[in-house]
C-alpha cells in the first residue's frame, strides 16, 4: 500500500530525529558531560518508526536499555529526553531515571528498562489490560537478540498465548548482545522467530533496515492482533551502528563491517534513495527536514545544558504516592 506524502515525510522525520539524537549523544558522551551508561539506537531506526507509526497513544510499548529510539518513535518529547539524559530536574523523569529509564505514561511508553528481558511480561500485562478495555489496543515489547534467551521472555510468550493477549513481541536482531554474537547465544543457530512460533504464535520476519518492509509487515501483524487472534511475534534483522555502550571498541566486528553497514544497511539512506528514486519526495524536502532536525537537536542540547539541576531534596520524592 502506498503511503501518503505526509506519512512518508513523518516517517523520515522520525527516523532522522532518532538518528541525529543518537549521533549527537555519541559526540557529547565523549566529552564526559553525560553521566552513566548510554546505549545508542543508531542503525535500528526503521524498526522503532516502522512499528510506532501504526500506533496510537492507547497502544503501549515497552523498551530496553537501548530505548531512545522507541521513546522518540512513540512521541516522547525530544527536549525532555535530552534533559533527562543530562540529568536535569526538567527531564522526562526529573533526572532520576536517566537514559535507561525513560518512560511516558501519556504516550503509552511504559519505560526503557535496564534489566534485559524484564519488559516482556510487563507488556503482556498491558496487553491483557487492553483486552479488558475492549478497544482494540495492543501492547508491544521490543527485545534484542540477547534478551530472547532470558527466561522472562519465554514465560511471557507462553503467558500471552494462554491468555490470548494482544501482545506483539518484536525481536530486533542486531546480531550482537554486548560483545557476543547471536549465532552463539541463540541456540537455534540464531533463529529467533521459529522459537517464538513454537510457543504457539504466528510469526513474521522482516528487514529491519528497510522502513517499508517494517511498516508493511507491521500492518499485517497489527491487523491480525487487533482482530483478537492473540499474540504475534516479528523478528527484524537490523544493525547497530555504534558499540554496545559508548566507549566500546567493537573489536568483535569484521574488518570493514561498520563501513559496510553504514553504506549498505542504513535505513535512512535506503529510505531516501527509494522515495526520491520513485519521485515521491524530493531531496530538497528531505534536506530541509534534516536541517530542521539538526536545529531541534542543537536547541535540545542547549536547553539540556542550561536546564535546572536537581537538588538533594529531590532524592527523597517520588518513592511513594503516600507513605
Amino acid at each position, binding site marked *: 500500500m502506498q503511503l501518503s506524502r505526509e506519512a512518508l515525510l513523518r516517517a523520515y522525520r522520525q527516523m532522522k530525529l532518532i538518528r541525529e539524537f543518537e549521533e549527537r549523544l555519541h559526540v557529547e558522551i565523549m566529552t564526559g558531560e553525560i553521566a552513566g551508561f548510554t546505549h545508542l539506537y543508531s542503525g535500528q531506526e526503521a524498526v522503532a518508526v516502522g512499528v510506532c507509526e501504526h500506533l496510537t497513544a492507547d497502544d503501549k510499548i515497552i523498551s530496553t536499555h537501548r530505548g531512545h529510539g522507541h521513546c522518540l518513535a512513540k512521541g516522547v518529547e525530544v527536549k525532555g529526553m535530552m534533559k533527562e539524559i543530562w540529568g536535569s530536574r526538567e527531564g522526562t523523569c526529573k533526572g532520576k531515571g536517566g537514559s535507561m529509564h525513560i518512560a511516558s505514561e501519556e504516550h503509552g511508553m511504559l519505560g526503557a*528498562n535496564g534489566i534485559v528481558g*524484564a519488559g516482556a511480561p*510487563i507488556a*503482556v500485562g*498491558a496487553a*491483557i*489490560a487492553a483486552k479488558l478495555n475492549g478497544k482494540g489496543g495492543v501492547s508491544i515489547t521490543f527485545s534484542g537478540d540477547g534478551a530472547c534467551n532470558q527466561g*522472562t521472555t519465554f514465560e*511471557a510468550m507462553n503467558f500471552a498465548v494462554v491468555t490470548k493477549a494482544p501482545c506483539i513481541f518484536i525481536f530486533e536482531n542486531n546480531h550482537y548482545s554486548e560483545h557476543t554474537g547471536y549465532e552463539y547465544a541463540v541456540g537455534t543457530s540464531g533463529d529467533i522467530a521459529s522459537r517464538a512460533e513454537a510457543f504457539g504464535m504466528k510469526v513474521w520476519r522482516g528487514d529491519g533496515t528497510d522502513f517499508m518492509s517494517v511498516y508493511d509487515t507491521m500492518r499485517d501483524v497489527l491487523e491480525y492482533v487487533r482482530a483478537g487472534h492473540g499474540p504475534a511475534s516479528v523478528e527484524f534483522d537490523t544493525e547497530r551502528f555504534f558499540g554496545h555502550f559508548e566507549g566500546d571498541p567493537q573489536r568483535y566486528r569484521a574488518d570493514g563491517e561498520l563501513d559496510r553497514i553504514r553504506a549498505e544497511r542504513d535505513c535512512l539512506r535506503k529510505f531516501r534513495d527509494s522515495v526520491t528514486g520513485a519521485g515521491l519526495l524530493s531531496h530538497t524536502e528531505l534536506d530541509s527536514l534534516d536541517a530542521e532536525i539538526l536545529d531541534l537537536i542543537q536547541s535540545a542540547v542547549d536547553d539540556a545544558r542550561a536546564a535546572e539541576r536537581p537538588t538533594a531534596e529531590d532524592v527523597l520524592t517520588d518513592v511513594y504516592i503516600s507513605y
Partner: protein
Amino acid sequence: MEKKMYRTAILETLAAEMERDPNVVLLGEDIVGGMGTPGGPEAIGGIWKTTEGLFGRFGADRVIDTPISESAIIGAAAGLALSGKRPVAELMFADFVGVCMDQIWNQIAKFRYMFGGKSRCPVVIRMAYGAGRNASAQHSQSVHQMLTGMPGLKVVMPTTPADAKGLLAQAIRDDDPVIFLEHKTLYATKGNVPDGEYLVPFGHARLTRAGTDVTLVSFGLMLGYCEQAADLLAAEGIGCDVIDLRTTSPLDEEAILDSVEVTGRLVVVDEAPPRCNIATDIISLVCAKAFVALKAPPVAVTPPHTPVPFARELEAAYLPSPEKIAAAARKTLSWK
C-alpha cells in the same frame, strides 16, 4: 460483626473490592483451578481457598488462572497496573519471590521513582508465608526482611481476620505497590470481622494488650506466641505491652517508641532468620531514638541462622516459642 476465618475475610474482601471497582483483576496459579480439565473451571479453587467462587462471579477476564510462570505473573501485574488496572496477584508461597524477585524489586518497586513520579503501579502481591506446617526449607520462609528493605514497596502482614479484611481493602485501594503477606498457619484461625466497609490504614500498629514492664513487638504467627508469652508473664505479675506491627513498611515507629518510653524494655520477635531482619531493624531504631529510656539491652527472639527444617521436632525447635519469648522478657527484666 461476625466471627470469620482469616481466609474467609480475604476471600470476601477480594469479592467486595472486585464488586466495587471493575479495575480490580486477579491473577495467579490455580486461583480458579480446573482450567483445561474435564472438571472445568472451579472444579477446585486455589489451594488456600482464598479465591473460591470468584471466577464464577467475575468471569475469566477478571480472574485469570496462569501457567507456572511467576515472573510472568508479577510482570503482567505490573503491566496491568501501569495501564490503569488494579491487579491482585497471588504467589502460592512467599518462597517463590525467588523466581520473580526482579519484577518485584527492580520493576514494580522502582517505576515511580525512576520515571520521576510520573507513573503509578498499584499492584497488590498476595503470598502465603511462614513456617509451622512442616513444609520444609522451600515452602516455609519469611520474606518481609528482604521486602521491607526495598524502597518503593509497602509491606503488610495481617495477624487477625479483621486486619486481613481492613488491610487488604486498603492494599487494593492504595496507589502504591503493596506486598500482602498471609501467614499460612493463620488461614483457619477465627476472629471477629467488622461488617461492611472497613479499612485499616498502613503504618498504624495495634496494641493488643497494655502493660508497663516490657514491650513485645511482633506480627503474624509470632504475635499469637507473644500473647501466650504475655499470659505466662502475667501469671508472674509481669505486664506486657504487645504490639502487632500490621505493616513493616511503613513502620509505626511512634507506637514502638511510645511503649518503650514507658517500659524501657524491648523484645522483638521475628520469624525471619536473625541477620538483617525486622528485629534488628526495630532494635536499631529504638537504640537510636529511645536510648535513654532503655533500662536493658533489647532482645531479638528469632529462629537460628539456618534454613527451615522439615521434621516436627526440628521445626518446633527452630521457631520462637511462647516460652522462649517469655524467657527473653524475663532476661531483660532481670538485667542489670
